[in-house]
């Protein structure tokens, strides 16, 4: 009896961790055209090494009257062109749960983006 309980518990933990792992994912979108805004000095050690990356990790609140949310890309030091080269968004179980328990009012936004290199021509 005890053994079967342990087995059920272990199996449930396994399924839960599998769900947790599966619910964390990222998707990257990259333009085939254009050069990226370069980073100098080089500091990153990931896929984005050599690129000027802007990272956003925040929670947005959607008002009752809004149906969607738009993030505006402005010209900044890291993004002088204000045009997108690459964007990566990440979804986690926490983000899904947050959205679920707040009925979609609060949404976790975890994105990285790289802009096109400024073209002075």
């Amino acid at each position: 009896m005890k053994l079967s309980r342990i087995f059920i518990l272990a199996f449930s933990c396994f399924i839960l961790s599998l769900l947790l792992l599966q619910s964390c994912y990222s998707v990257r979108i990259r333009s085939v055209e254009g050069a990226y805004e370069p980073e100098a000095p080089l500091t990153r050690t990931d896929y984005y090494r050599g690129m000027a990356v802007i990272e956003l990790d925040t929670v947005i609140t959607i008002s009752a009257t809004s149906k969607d949310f738009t993030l505006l890309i402005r010209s900044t030091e890291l993004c002088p062109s204000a045009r997108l080269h690459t964007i990566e968004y990440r979804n986690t179980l926490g983000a899904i749960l947050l959205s679920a328990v707040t009925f979609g009012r609060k949404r976790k936004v975890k994105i990285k983006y790289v802009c096109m290199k400024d073209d002075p021509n």
Partner: protein
Amino acid sequence: MARTTKYTLKEWDTLHNNGPFKLKALYKTKLEGSGIMPSKIDRYNDAAQEIRRLIGEAQGSNEGFRAHGSAWSMSNIAHQGDRMHFNAHMNLRSHFSGQEIHETSPYKAENVFLVQCGNTIKEISAYLEAHGKSLKTTGASNGQTIAGCISTGVHGSAFGVGSVQDYIIGINLIIGPNEEDVVYLERHTKPVLTDAFIQKINARVIRNDGLFNAALVGLGSFGFIHGVVIEAEDLFLLKRYVRKIDKNTALELAEGLDFENSPFKIEEETNDQGQGTTPYHYKVFINQYSKEANEYVVECIYKKPYRQSYPDPFPIIKQSIYGDLINLIISISRKFPKSIPAFVKSLEKTILPAVDEVTTGTLSETFWDAPYQGPAFACSFGVDHSDSAKALKVLTELTKTDGPIPGIFAMRFIKQSEAILSFAKFPITCMIEIDGVLWKKSRKLISLKEFSRRMIIALMDNDIPFTIHWGKNADWGFPNLVSHMYGEKADTWKAYRSALLSKDMQLLFSNDFLKTLGLFSEEEENEEALEDLIASL
């Protein structure tokens, strides 16, 4: 005015983590906005003035100054311990009217373009394509800046074309802090621009084949390369095939490049007699550890006239592992244990994945982005292509007897360059390269420097003349390495550099790489003899 930002740093590293190297300050210059200064020539000249100011500041502080681009080189060629300048934001591009081309020029105005130093290959390709033009060749990817490419000799495997520097037809250098230190070089036998245009960029012209060919692969030490004039050609397509073929056939092709009489044929690429046609590009991938390696993977690319409608190459190009050699080995290494001996053991059981890829695309689509994959090394030796099979055997045996080394080999082929210090010095140079994952020396693993030294010794012991890629890893301090590779040409290069640059500027534009190679010394030289070297002919 162009604006420069200064970063006070302790160290600097390459893209592939081959450092770190000590550094005091990094500078980054951004051009004046086009709204404030609409004329491209005015912004170009404004940037030149800013670079002269920075050179003057470095000179005043008795410090060195060196430009760098995308930092893709794995040697310390781009490094200077005092002041480095990141030039990627100096990326103006321009074309010429017929009136701006020299009356005796062999070049058509429609093919001639001025590009500022910080333009990457990808940016230039996009600009040219908008004009219906293309670069003649590039490396296996597109992120290097044009100034970095020519300073180090970036090449592909277009053995009828050459390296990137071989389509450079004019060079605008800044060789000091003063107004008269802006010079424009071109060949006297092949002039490009009118004196009137050269005056517009406030430069003094020197038309001299010898000086031009010395500055062409200048190792970043002939002054600050502000811009280059390139010769493009009409846009074309490349049809790329990746196949596995018999090892001996692949090596015979490497030695002879005789595609007409080879048993290897691609059915779509034959002549009326059914013989194979000569490709634009030929590359061989070799896993030297594989015990079943009786076949090699080859990449053959054929040049085709441009047409607007062709299948989208990106679904295959973005997935293909047979592009950049570094990407191939790192993508293989991810599937295996992190321990180097275990990884190499796995390579013994791994044949390179079989492929039958066919894509059609422009040059820029075919040699597209190669994202960073992690710390990496690359060693690359140039040999006469008739020595390629022998040299490959020597080097692959060495990795097995003195290794394990966590890398695999490839061979690419380049037409001879006119640049004095180009490593493409043979009629057709075969670049034998081993790329792989960076490792740390241990009881079981020799260091990268030691491995590099043993490769040099092995080629010398087997009487195989060779050169080494300037931007790759090597034992650059090996005794008399440069004179062994280039003989008197190295002295000629030094003489031209001494003639063009003042004593102060020779020191300012030198670095440890140049000193290690023995290409910089502070000896007194015969100034009268040097004057002749920089005469405009």
